[in-house]
């Protein structure tokens, strides 16, 4: 079995767990905090046989929106953190000004303590995109607030942009830009 596949499996576990946990805890924390009456049903509809029932459509919209936001925030913030870590690390390597700023703000340890790989960022971004698609679909169906759907879309686009930047950084390691390196 290839090392890439082993690593991909290992790296996918945490975001998969966080995606479910974000939605689940978002849902039940809200239900507990606002003391919302709920019930779990087992009517067979489609491929799912378990549903969470809430008493009014306003409550359903509110709980679903905020639990979607909790899920996308957990995944999005973690992914953006990893992207920033990687891009800042690369920037400090190329630009002495950045390293001076990093030292000034006492962030050197934060950047050098652990570096995220492209594969890790790719997997996390995929989870962000999947979560965004679910949230945007819910938003279009009127099951989630519109602003939550828009926020999910923005977070998703930011992560994709960060992923492309990370890809550029990684490729630059292999094929350095001719403008930066002179061999003559």
């Amino acid at each position: 079995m290839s090392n890439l596949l082993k690593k991909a499996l290992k790296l996918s576990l945490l975001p998969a767990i966080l995606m479910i946990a974000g939605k689940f805890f978002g849902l039940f924390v809200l239900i507990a905090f606002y003391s919302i009456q709920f019930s779990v049903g087992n009517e067979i509809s489609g491929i799912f046989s378990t549903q969470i029932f809430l008493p009014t459509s306003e409550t359903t919209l509110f709980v679903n929106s905020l639990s979607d936001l909790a899920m996308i925030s957990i995944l999005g913030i973690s992914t953006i953190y990893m992207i920033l870590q990687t891009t800042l690390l690369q920037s400090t390597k190329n630009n002495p000004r950045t390293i001076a700023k990093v030292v000034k703000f006492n962030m050197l340890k934060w950047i050098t303590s652990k570096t995220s790989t492209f594969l890790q960022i790719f997997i996390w971004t995929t989870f962000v995109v999947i979560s965004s698609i679910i949230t945007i679909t819910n938003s279009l169906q009127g099951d989630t607030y519109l602003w939550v759907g828009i926020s999910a879309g923005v977070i998703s686009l930011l992560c994709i942009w960060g992923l492309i930047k990370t890809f550029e950084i990684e490729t630059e390691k292999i094929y350095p830009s001719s403008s930066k390196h002179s061999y003559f």
Partner: protein
Amino acid sequence: MITKNNQSKVRSFSGKILEPLALGLLALLFIIPALTVMNLKPLTKDTKDFSNVLGVTTNSQIIVDLIGGTHEILSVEKIYKDGESGYRYGTLLAQRDSDFYSKPILQITNNTNEEKILTFLGSTLHPTQSKIGLIINDQAYGLQDSTGQSELVEILLKPRVAYDIYLTVENTVDIQFSEEFEMKIGIK
């Protein structure tokens, strides 16, 4: 003795088998959370209309509650709403020796301030030589005799009272196959 060449062959062969499985597992790691999150989307349903939830049904403050639990011949118990004021109870009677069996199946509570009449009509899908009945408030009622004839049972449910309903099965010969039993419950 296993040579180094053989070891590498085994490793390469196991890698070829494991790789598609690992790819499938990786795909599942993306699909399962997505499906779970979609399933966790709450739905709106008025609590008064919770009719099919975990075996508990309510109608005009008459609560029909499935007792559940395990029993040597009764399994796969279910209750669901049937029409406006009726319910349907179903169970699977396993193959059994000639004996008398009983199990508490339902608890019916009248939360209203008026008397209600409950009707029970139940039978197995195929006639067997079993006598099937109910015990309600220490009183025995016959639902189906050994020839397969069904009989309607009617009881009076007093206000603010809960009754445990027992299902009884009696057979004089061994029954070598499982059979489905279904009972209609009406509330008037």
